[in-house]
């Protein structure tokens, strides 16, 4: 029987039956893994408090038939409890978790994505990650998953971003004025915003003003929905609560 101990972040968990849970984990070396945690809702010793989204743990997994593992027990590494005292930070953490869950496929390792997620959760918990940090995280996660949107040059011709610049999710980023004439679904975007997003992709951490963040959020929502085929649930949740 294949057994494995994996460092993992709980990205989501759903109740199953009377007392069980099915947990989705982003593991460091196995990528996304679904695990069946028998008796998890009643167990006070093996899982209590640990199978919550955002928890970093060592999962003791046992292979079963099919794609779902059995979660035998966990060793808690970091529960990120401080996130649960602040709604904006908690929402950002849940957004990051949902994004990572959707960006990867089962059992395809993404150690770099795992590492930036763990780092981001740590920064959120330490209150060192403001609203711009979520956009920076999102851009980094998209890049690591192979969906890097292009903001520094035209996604079609590779040249400079000549006005009027448009953002076209179909073509993977910003397109220059002349190329924009050939794209059907592009939306106008200022060169300042494109430059700010390119800066975040390059590792700059200058906080963006609220109106620029709102515009960036629109573009990224459009891009992520295009790549994943649906909007993330956390997007609508944050919009309803007026959070970013």
């Amino acid at each position: 029987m294949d057994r494995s101990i994996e460092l993992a972040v709980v990205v989501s968990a759903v109740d199953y039956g009377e007392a069980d849970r099915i947990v989705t984990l982003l593991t460091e070396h196995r990528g996304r893994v679904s695990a069946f945690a028998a008796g998890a809702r009643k167990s006070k010793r093996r899982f209590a408090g640990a199978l919550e989204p955002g928890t970093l743990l060592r999962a003791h997994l046992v292979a079963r038939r099919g794609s779902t593992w059995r979660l035998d027990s966990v060793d808690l590494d970091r529960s990120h409890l401080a996130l649960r005292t602040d709604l904006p930070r908690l929402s950002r953490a849940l957004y990051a978790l949902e994004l990572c869950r959707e960006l990867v496929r089962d059992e395809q390792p993404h150690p770099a994505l795992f590492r930036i997620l763990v780092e981001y959760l740590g920064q959120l918990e330490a209150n060192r990650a403001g609203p711009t940090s979520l956009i920076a995280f999102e851009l980094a996660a998209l890049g690591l998953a192979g969906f890097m949107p292009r903001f520094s040059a035209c996604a079609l011709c590779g040249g400079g971003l000549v006005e009027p610049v448009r953002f076209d999710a179909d073509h993977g980023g910003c397109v220059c004025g002349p190329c924009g004439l050939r794209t059907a679904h592009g939306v106008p975007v200022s060169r300042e915003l494109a430059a700010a997003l390119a800066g975040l992709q390059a590792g700059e951490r200058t906080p963006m003003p609220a109106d620029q963040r709102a515009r960036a959020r629109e573009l990224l929502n459009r891009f992520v929905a295009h790549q994943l085929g649906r909007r993330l649930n956390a997007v609508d949740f944050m919009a309803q609560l007026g959070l970013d």
Partner: protein
Amino acid sequence: MTPAPLNRLVAQLAKLPGIGEKTAQRLAFHLLRSPPEYALELSGAIQEVVAQVRLCPRCFSLAEGALCPLCTDARREDRVLCVVEGVADLLAIERTREFKGRYHVLHGVLSPLEGVGPDQLRIRELITRLGDSPVEEIIVATNPDVEGEATALYLMRLLKPMGVKVSRIAQGIPMGGDLEYADQATLARALQGRREL
């Protein structure tokens, strides 16, 4: 092969949460073997529940009449309101016999990952209710999980500006518990929420 009414019963039972096809079949055969009065009483009880039990328009708990017994009980304290996720939680708190105030049932919790926002819960009704009641304190008794905490934080943001005291139920070591066997998250929470003696 099996009679059509039995198939229909199995199909209906299998729609219940936690009941699969096999269990539904077993339950159906049990009903068939039981005295006919039992099956009639069961169907009568289901019909009564459907016809007579409604959500209380004030607290959204279950009611048989216009309001639920908890809302009509004049001995209960009007100034304290306990907000719970579901009716089962209300019943659990009632069993303690410690709380003498009123209740408000949200019928769910905010769930960012499932896309459940404030509009899907009875939060608007809670705000309306506060407008014409003498509530001074709201105790948020949602579960101590991520969704429950998100709901509590949202309610705090919403209710604090209205001048209402908002409190959260305590979390930590259970009565009769043993520190040695307590899980790390609960123990950490208990330390954070320690109180002066």
